[in-house]
């Protein structure tokens, strides 16, 4: 008996030992920031006091957040852009996946897939470089062509009207191919017998898609849709930070970019932390709600 217990403890002891570096990492770089976030959001940060010695101000920072003239606009921008991403980005990968799945020339499909996945692996900086090469006012391809046919060049990167289409468009371009993978995985689980039965019945491709393919895909489609809604407070700050400038702040400034400027450039730690905390808390709520909705409507959830 004692020997077995000793062995068990020794076994678990070595596991704990192994886990220590990982635990340390989580404590220092994941949990500590959460702790700081709460403290910074409810105190008025001063250099002398530091993080822990500054004065407690309760909800004053959050009040200041919503009293600031632009945070509400920033919040709306965030949600609008996130929503646009979901709506625009939803159908195309499904469509493309179905076509890839159905096309008989498998060689062509394989080559296409390889090429289609490539943009996913570009960094946003590279994507910006590509967008710049196409859309820049002075040297971009599109404007070169426009001036050569006598038209006025379009200031793509300085135009508020075109900012969101640019952002959403480049994001779609980047993720379209990769987004088909999850649908292809689902499509591969569909019983081919169903297709054969449909063919026997004389159903053409459109009817086949409508009556068989889409219903089979419904769970995963609903899952993707609802889970995407969960990240409605995260509108792709990294991409926007590269593409925006003061001309497009009005339509493009989102929580992440606002927090970067106010928190790290202007060093208003309290305010920016409050904004970040707001984003994390409500973001969590949205994800939880989205997961619940996904379970209910699609039968699957994140957990």
């Amino acid at each position, binding site marked *: 008996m004692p020997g077995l217990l000793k062995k068990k403890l020794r076994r678990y002891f070595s596991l704990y030992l192994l886990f220590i570096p990982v635990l340390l990492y989580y404590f220092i770089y994941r949990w500590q920031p959460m702790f700081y976030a709460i403290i910074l959001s409810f105190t008025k940060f001063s*250099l002398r006091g530091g993080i822990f010695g500054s004065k407690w101000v309760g909800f004053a920072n959050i009040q200041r957040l919503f009293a*600031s003239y632009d945070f509400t606009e920033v919040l709306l921008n965030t949600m609008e852009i996130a929503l646009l991403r979901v709506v625009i980005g939803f159908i195309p990968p499904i469509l493309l996946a179905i076509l890839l799945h159905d096309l008989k020339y498998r060689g062509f499909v394989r080559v296409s897939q390889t090429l289609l996945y490539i943009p996913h692996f570009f960094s946003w900086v590279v994507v910006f470089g590509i967008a710049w090469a196409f859309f820049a*006012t*002075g040297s971009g391809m599109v404007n070169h062509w426009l001036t050569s046919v006598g038209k006025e060049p379009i200031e793509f990167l300085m135009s508020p009207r075109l900012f969101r289409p640019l952002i959403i468009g480049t994001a779609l371009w980047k993720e379209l191919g990769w987004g088909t993978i999850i649908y292809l995985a689902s499509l591969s689980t569909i019983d081919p017998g169903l297709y054969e039965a449909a063919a026997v019945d004389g159903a053409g491709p459109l009817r086949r898609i409508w009556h068989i393919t889409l219903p089979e895909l419904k769970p995963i489609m609903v899952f993707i849709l609802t889970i995407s809604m969960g990240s409605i407070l995260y509108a792709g700050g990294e991409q926007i930070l590269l593409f925006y*400038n003061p001309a497009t702040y009005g339509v493009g400034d989102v929580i992440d970019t606002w927090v970067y400027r106010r928190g790290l450039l202007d060093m208003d730690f309290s305010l920016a932390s409050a904004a970040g905390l707001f984003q994390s808390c409500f973001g969590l709520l949205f994800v939880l709600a989205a997961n619940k909705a996904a379970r209910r409507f699609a039968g699957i959830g994140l957990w």
Partner: protein
Amino acid sequence: MRRVSLSVCLISLVCLLIALSTPGMSASNATVWYPPANTTDYSYDDMSQKYDIEFFSTFWIGRPIPQDNLWTAWLNKTFNINLTFTTGTPVGAKVKVRGITGDAPDIANLPPSEISDVLSLTSEGIMINDWRPYLKYLPTMSKMRLDPARRFVVTDDKNQILAMPKPTGNPENWCWFIRKDWLEKLHLSMPKTDTQLLNVLTAFAKKDPDGNGIADTYGITSNGSGLDIGGQIEALLPMYGDPDVRLVKGKVYTAQNERKKLLQFIQKLIKAGAIDPDWYTQNHDSLMKKLASQRFGLIYGPADWIGGLAVQHKLDYDWQKKWTPLYPVKGDNGRSGGKWVCQKAGPEAFLMVSVKAAKDTGKMKRIMHMLDALNFPNEGFWLVRYGVHSKGSMSETTKFMKYGDLLYLNWAGTIPFSNAKDLCLADFGNPWADARDNVVSGFSPEPDDKVTVIEEWTQTILTKIDRYATNNRALLPPAPVDIVAGYAKFRVQNEIAFIMGDKPWSEWNAYQAQALKIGYSKILAHYQVQLERMEKILNPSD
């Protein structure tokens, strides 16, 4: 008859002789010049212990300093230290972050735009807030003509010196310069009104003034770095009036009306295609590069920019002569403005030392010794600023040539740091010693008689061009960050919206009203207090 013609000949002969013997820039007059070794007494520092010193500085271009540069090596050897530089703005913010972790850098050099950081770093106990006890270690610096700059870092009640300001070198020879040869080629006369300027700049862009068949020139550009309209374009603001923040009849005035007209002018430039499309997003470096590539015809800067560029890029000496100072242009089609801006002597930077370093008296003495020894007229100044010392140059090509009383620098200039040995510490940005550029009259690419036009231009600018004195913008401590940050975004956002036509000009007054509501009124109140204080400092009634 004959007697008259004889005297005429004699007189002409005499005149000719006088003319020929006038000291000119000829090879026979030039001598190589080395600064004298300095004799300032630093015996308070026994130089025995080696110290690690960390220095954060603006080095306004923000280029990284190569590791094995000669200057750091010289500084390390001469002062028995191990020096590390961190460069690039913002300096104050970086110092603050280090201050939070209890590890502030030993020396920091903040640009005047960060004066609010000077105030907060000293009040929060991160950097020392009184230099008076150390003045005895600074025999050279304590004698410098620092007023009125120093007054802005001296507290009202206690007369503490919060930071050591470094006076600006050559503040007064900034001007607009225009391509004379392009004007001549396109048969245009010197623009005198903003409308004429617009036409000239459009012509520069559209009519291929360099004759190479490619439409790659523009009238003008700017260096906003994607954050603002940029200092270049802002320098046109005086076309419409005095651009400075000042008291007008006792109330603060921030030149918003003039600003509106400038923004309208920029809009016209864009519509006419006269301005470089990258004007809003590119930074200073990019601008200078394009300038050297002959891309525009109008540039604002100090008289030695163009000369310096010529040397740097090994351009023809004659290239500089293609430019000429532009006399002030009047806005409102000739009805307003009429002066350029003179940046009066203000601090180029503020030197600060950390409280942490001050606790070690030996280290403090070393720091003070070093900072003082690198100020004019000590030898260290010549070396760090120009790479020349009493025994010679640290590189093969950099040297001084003296023509009579005038000193010219044969300057290798900033070249890619693969040739690190030719670099001068000042090439990394503004010298962090004392900037006394006006001890050097100009730059000479050849060590003989080919000198630049900088001296001539400087004289023109100082004596013949009318300028508004703008002191306040550089020295006014900005309002606290939580007021300013929101307004700053609002301002830049709206300004570019008006320029690009996304907002009609009819909404300008509504924009001004809304600005007041979101915090600009607080900023104005802050300026009022500060301007009144400045008035008292500059014009004490007692």
